[in-house]
């Protein structure tokens, strides 16, 4: 479903991502791990057009332009960022509605001349948004202004927003960061549910090993901007290269 080939991201002289190729197949949940600074988040940012990058990217067989945030949603990529990116001036449901899969009649024409059409689509969008909120457990907070949510709730709101766009692949960046154990377990349940009910392949950056073991079919390990190992979770931790990457002595930055 997602096929990234030779992704390179440079910040000045630093090669944050140095030729990473990875694939997420149709029914997979793939984990992306690596020590701090290994380029995981930067790789995700590259795929989402947030940083300029080189390489090739395909989603569902269609090539996707790199470095252009606008094409990301239409390509079917759903992204949840490391820090919750909530639009605090909007209510929860409005936050989710921003990402609605049906993007028609949302401009000036829809507001004025085509108002009946807009209403029809809006009602459908409200239904889908509500379903997404219910899926993550926020159905009671529909009309709540987003700035009143807790940190964990904002994270869930981001997930709902990513879901409602009917993505072809879901990219999550440390979704359990800042959550306690029970919240993390609930999040794991949620992701599995999303994966099964919506049939969406997932690429998730995480540090928590149990979380990864439970969720992922496959784990890809990055270090210093390169893929150093890939394999099923229970095996990957015993891989020598992975162990030395995590526990190894100081390395010079690439």
């Amino acid at each position, binding site marked *: 479903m997602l096929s990234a080939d030779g992704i390179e991201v440079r910040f000045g002289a630093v090669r944050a991502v140095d030729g990473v190729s990875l694939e997420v197949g149709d029914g997979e949940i793939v984990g992306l791990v690596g020590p701090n600074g290994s380029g995981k988040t930067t790789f995700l940012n590259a795929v989402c057009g947030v940083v300029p990058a080189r390489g090739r990217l395909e989603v569902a067989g269609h090539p996707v332009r790199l470095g252009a945030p*606008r094409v990301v949603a239409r390509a079917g990529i759903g992204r949840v960022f490391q820090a919750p990116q909530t639009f605090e001036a909007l*209510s929860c449901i409005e936050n989710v509605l*921003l990402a609605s899969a049906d*993007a028609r009649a949302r401009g*000036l024409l829809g507001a004025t001349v085509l*108002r009946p059409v807009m209403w029809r689509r809006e*009602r459908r969008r409200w239904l889908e948004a509500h379903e997404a909120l219910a899926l993550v457990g926020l159905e009671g907070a529909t009309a709540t202004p987003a700035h009143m949510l807790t940190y964990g709730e904002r994270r869930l709101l981001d997930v709902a927003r990513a879901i409602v766009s009917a993505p072809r692949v879901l990219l999550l960046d440390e979704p359990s960061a800042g959550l306690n154990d029970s919240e993390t377990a609930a999040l794991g349940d949620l992701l599995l549910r999303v994966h099964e009910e919506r049939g969406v392949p997932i690429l998730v950056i995480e540090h928590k090993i149990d979380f990864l073991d439970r969720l992922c079919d496959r784990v890809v390990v990055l270090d210093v901007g390169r893929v150093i190992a890939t394999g099923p979770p229970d095996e990957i931790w015993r891989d020598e290269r992975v162990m030395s990457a995590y526990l190894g002595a100081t390395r010079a930055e690439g």
Partner: protein
Amino acid sequence: MTDATTPGAKPAPPTGDTPAAGPTGGGTAAPYAKRLRPGIYRRHHYLAVVVFVAATAVLAPMFAESRSTQFLVNLWLVYSITGIGFYWVFGLAGRFAFCQTFMMALGGYMGAWVAQSSLEGGFLVQVALAVVASAVVATVVGLLVRRAQAFYFAIATIAVAEMGRVFFSKAEWFTGMNGTRTGIPPIRLFGRDYIAEDEVFWIFLGGLALVLLLAAVIERSPLRRDGVAARDNALVAAVVGVPTGRAQLTLFVLGSAMGGLSGALMGPWTGTTGDTSFGIELAIGIFLMLLLGGIGSMWGPVVGAAFYVAVPDLLSGFDKYATIVYGALLLVTIILMPEGIVGGLGRLRLRLEGRWRRIRPKGAVDAVG
């Protein structure tokens, strides 16, 4: 929970509870959908517009006795129009635009030119062409700088204003001798002349009513949330699928068109127009109106314009100190009252209802995993 529809002003606007054929599940869909609609649709925008227009129509003639007060009322109405436009550009879309007064000047010149050239266009033609002219210029500018971020955009709009100034001073075929056009014929609509202040009042009130209606329509549409998203975090909004460029361009063009409209209204009202009437003091004034009245609401500029128009009247001997007072007022407003009057009132209400929790400052870096 019904929203009043405005009789006659435009085709009956759809309310949220029109039981149209439900999208799924047949008969239960419609009331279910109504429960789901975002909170903003529960506010009574249209009703508020009707109440405001009616109240103004009744109260203004009662309390505005002298010509000078009537003049101020009319000035308030016109400034409200441009203020609402600026609310769309800056308040809603978050575009720091410095060309609103340029648009007003353009509208004024365009209207006067249409009236005084061989076209001899009537009032409605003047206004229409002024709106079109400012919309076209705004579209061109907006497209050129479409992907420019905040300060590039601000600088570009200042440049537009400067370019306008240079152009206006040279193009005397358009702007008249020394950049001023005088002797603009008064407003003539359906065979009637509107010359006295209390006559012009009705024209201006009608114009503001239409603009307020458009504002209400926009508040109750996806365009509003797209604009807010583009304003607050354009990058994430784009990634998530919001058409940020298009939303901001639309709001910028609409807002600039309102500037053109207000400029075109002022010409036949005062009889003259020139870009000196739309100088930097008014530019700051428009900022002030929006910030003082409340940057987060379509009613903010209406409230702010009332203050802006009333203050010089209240302080005699004001003229010399005008700019300093406005500047100081702007500073004080920003430092102490960033949400303005309307926002402050809204916050008071929420506090009374016990639902307020402090908004986290934008840009706070949350705990990163």
